[in-house]
């Protein structure tokens, strides 16, 4: 099987799974959940390109996500802008913000980078909470429905279709990016920045680009999810949300696009299931997270792939030392 064929075969399976869901005639609740998983998975794929592939950790992605949502909410409510224009301006503004801060911030490494992105997100959260006149403060504000040329996006199926289309498109794009020279440059940067520079990669530029790309993806999804929920609060920009995105990347698998989807689905579905546990919810969530990462240290998808490829090694070592990223030549 050529890599190109295999990529499209897996994508086709993903698309079929998405098409299958409406045929099961699910409840409104399931549709709503699936739609949110789809939008979230796109954010996680963007973060995975930055974090899993290029090795640049961000604890502030919820800020970009929330800024997109607030741009849509404020521009449509207070200024009467069309939804699409608000979404686009939000994305452009977030992209510009990411571009400006990328160079000074991305010089930092590891935990310092985590702290810098986290600080940035914290500032955004505090502003959104305090500027009550525009944002409604900590109570949040309503967001009008998404309209395009007089047509209103409403109904479970329409939203689900939009989310699925976004996810398929971004998955396809990310898989291609990972295999392109730009994607390989990112992986070289994760391996060693100095070595990447010596191989002729413009490290600062590559990092800036992937940072802006992931920020814009988060912003657009933030806008769509705000319209979908019909409401936005400062929690959309908060640290718990950022940590959740990061958790999804690591749980699903670093440098694995499909892992991002699995991670997003798992982290969002678990609390729904665990709700039945009542007071035990937080404890069980922690146990599942810790246990999964102890036994599948490279994340679910890379570890499963490793087990499938080398079934007899399963007992010897729990995971490969360095999981092969998707998009690298095999």
């Amino acid at each position: 099987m050529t890599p190109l064929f295999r990529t499209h075969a897996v994508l086709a399976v993903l698309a079929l799974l998405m098409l299958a869901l409406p045929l099961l005639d699910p409840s409104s609740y399931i549709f709503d959940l699936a739609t949110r998983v789809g939008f979230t998975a796109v954010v996680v794929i963007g973060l995975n390109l930055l974090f899993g592939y290029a090795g640049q950790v961000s604890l502030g992605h919820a800020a970009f996500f929330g800024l997109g949502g607030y741009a849509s909410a404020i521009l449509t409510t207070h200024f009467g802008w069309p939804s699409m224009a608000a979404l686009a301006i939000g994305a452009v503004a977030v992209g510009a913000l990411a571009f400006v801060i990328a160079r000074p911030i991305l010089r930092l490494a590891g935990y310092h980078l985590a702290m810098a992105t986290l600080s940035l997100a914290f500032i955004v959260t505090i502003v959104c909470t305090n500027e009550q006149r525009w944002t409604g403060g900590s109570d949040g504000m309503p967001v009008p429905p998404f309209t395009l040329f007089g047509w209103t996006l409403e109904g479970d199926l329409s939203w689900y279709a939009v989310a699925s289309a976004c996810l398929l498109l971004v998955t396809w794009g990310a898989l291609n990016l990972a295999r392109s020279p730009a994607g390989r440059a990112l992986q070289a940067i994760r391996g060693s920045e100095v070595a990447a520079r010596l191989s002729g990669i413009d490290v600062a530029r590559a990092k800036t680009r992937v940072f802006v790309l992931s920020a814009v993806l988060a912003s657009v999804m933030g806008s769509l999810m705000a319209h979908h929920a019909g409401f936005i609060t400062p929690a959309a920009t908060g640290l718990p949300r950022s940590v959740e995105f990061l958790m999804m990347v690591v749980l699903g698998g670093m440098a694995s696009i499909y892992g991002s989807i699995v991670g997003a689905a798992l982290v969002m579905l678990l609390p729904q299931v665990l709700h039945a546990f009542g007071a035990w919810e937080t404890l069980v969530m922690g146990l599942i997270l810790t246990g999964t990462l102890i036994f599948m240290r490279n994340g679910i998808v890379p570890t499963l792939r490793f087990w499938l490829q080398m079934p007899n090694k399963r007992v010897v070592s729990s995971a490969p030392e360095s999981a092969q990223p998707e998009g690298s030549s095999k």
Partner: protein
Amino acid sequence: MATDLLQFLFSGLTVGAMYALAALGYALIYNASHIVNFAQGEFIMVGAITAAVLVEQGIALPVAIVGAVLLTLLVGALTERLAIRPAQGAPLVTLLIITMGVGLIIKGAVQLAFGKGTYSLPAFSGDTPILLGKTALAPQSLWVAGCTAVVVLVLAWYFTRTLGGKSMLATSYNPLAAQLMGIDTRRVLMMSFALAGALGAIGGVLTAPITFTSSEAGTVLGLKGFAAAALGGIGSGAGALAGGLLLGVIEALTAGYVSSSYKDAVAFVLLLLVLIFMPRGLFGSKVTERV
């Protein structure tokens, strides 16, 4: 004016000492393993709540405090043994998320055992403020400042004068070389988690009379401690102390003179500036990347 300033400084230094204790916990574990332990805030919370619950059960305050510190020390050691050691050799980010998972487990367990309500601890020596001119000083603030000073001195002694401390330092410089010198690096790691637990409990117990505590309190404290550690330079003891005090004072001054709703924002703007212009923190050492 001067009275106000003094008042703000006192409250800032008290809160700062609390941040510094949290930051020292991060520094201990970071030094032994380069792991940033995101469960540190929960250690603080466990210490504070345990002491409060014991006192509520009618146990004498000093006994309750010792009990809380010992329990949290055990929680720290168990964290290393049950969650970090089984994942030995995993990428650092995986370990980081594992410590977040441990934080959730601790928080969940505390919620199960003691509920989600708030607890408070009586002040160690009464609530009558000490008056310095026109400035009122809570006696508990003196306890916080004094105990923080003692903890810092004990840590300095431990790291420079004892075999245990020196083996921890050796492990932080070069784990392999330390192992070849006969140091049991796994025990060092467990020791650092246990010490970080005890440190967290001390911080929690000291400040519980001032701030109240609940199962949710750990997250914010842990974050502020991490900010203080990053401000001073992760892994540096002096940096943790300076970063914590600085953060506390700046927050208090902002709350007093600018706006209390923006006090957290100022702390983080400052942190962002320090990180951009002094990427290793105020006291961090320079590191050269190896290829």
